[in-house]
């Protein structure tokens, strides 16, 4: 099946095998010889790279120097209105900001572990 | 390069907008501005008196709760004070405005006292209300 990098991948939501959001496709990575698609990149620093200019540098800086997360394209199971991964998101490294906020703010509030239903 | 160009454009637009707003705020008050301010003060006073009368009457008939009445009266008093303050802060720029000032200022002063009376006697300020309404009609 023929897919488009810009239309079908970029800016689409990545979800794990249970449909939980993982991130947006902020950029994609090619192999060294620029002939094949190797991985999806997600994270503010990748998004900042696409903006370019001053704004892009701001967005990248807001990520606190964190590298974008790299998701090998082999993990993609299906592309429709979202990019579905074949794995659970716990198997991927957690986003730096999410982990920091969980450790320092949200996780410390009582009830942060309660599931809704 | 393009980013710089955009930045410059955005900056000049903002500067223009601010300059325009600054001019509008600092330009001397003319007859038109004064009339608008006077009419709005008169309207505010009229509305405060009418609301107070409506609520006082409803309180008498037991249609509204006492805390509601209290906070409605407070709102009206605040509105009247705010309107009067805005009006008296402006110096009348010419003779015509001065006449307008002499007509409205006593009405606003009476309104302050009338408001307190209206809270217990709903129809105490009916005449003053009508006078304010006439002022608004004459000057619009």
């Amino acid at each position, binding site marked *: 099946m023929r897919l488009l990098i810009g239309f079908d991948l970029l800016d689409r939501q990545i979800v794990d095998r249970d449909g939980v959001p993982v991130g947006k496709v902020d950029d994609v990575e090619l192999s060294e010889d620029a002939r094949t698609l190797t991985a999806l990149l997600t994270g503010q620093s990748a998004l900042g790279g*696409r903006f370019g200019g001053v704004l892009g540098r701001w967005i*990248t800086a807001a990520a606190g120097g964190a590298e974008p997360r790299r998701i090998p394209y082999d993990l993609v199971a299906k592309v429709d209105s979202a990019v579905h991964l074949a794995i659970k998101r716990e198997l991927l490294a957690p986003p730096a900001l999410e982990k920091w906020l969980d450790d320092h703010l949200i996780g410390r509030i009582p009830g942060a572990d309660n599931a809704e239903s | 390069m393009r980013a710089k160009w955009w930045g410059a454009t955005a900056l000049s637009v903002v500067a223009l907008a601010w300059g325009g707003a600054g001019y509008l705020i600092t330009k001397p008050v003319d007859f038109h501005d004064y009339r608008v301010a006077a009419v709005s003060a008169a309207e505010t006073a009229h509305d405060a008196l009418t609301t107070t009368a409506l609520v006082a009457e409803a309180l008498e008939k037991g249609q509204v709760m006492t805390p509601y009445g209290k906070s409605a009266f407070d709102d009206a008093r605040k509105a009247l004070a705010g309107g009067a303050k805005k009006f008296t802060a402006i110096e009348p720029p010419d003779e015509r405005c001065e006449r307008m000032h002499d007509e409205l200022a006593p009405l606003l002063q009476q309104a302050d006292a009338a408001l307190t009376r209206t809270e217990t006697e709903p129809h105490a300020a009916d005449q003053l209300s009508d006078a304010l309404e006439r002022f608004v009609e004459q000057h619009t």
Partner: protein
Amino acid sequence: MPRASDFLGKRVAGGRIVDVAFDENQRLTEAIVVRGPWGRLLGYEREQVRGPWLIETLARWILRRETIVVPWDPSFVTPDPRPEPPTSAREASG
């Protein structure tokens, strides 16, 4: 490693690259190139999106219907200075 942001929007012979297609083996096959200045496709270049007539016509008019497809060439990728965390960014922009 090269990224999509290195070639999307880049000028090549015939216009600007707005999108690149790849096959089931993740091999890049062809590039979609437009003449116009505005490269967002809104999806109207695909068969699946039809209508509303007025919006579709306007979108196509902005694109000037001059979309061409050219075979993918790795030379379309040149590493542009990409913003990095502040220290190295200064070198790149300076």
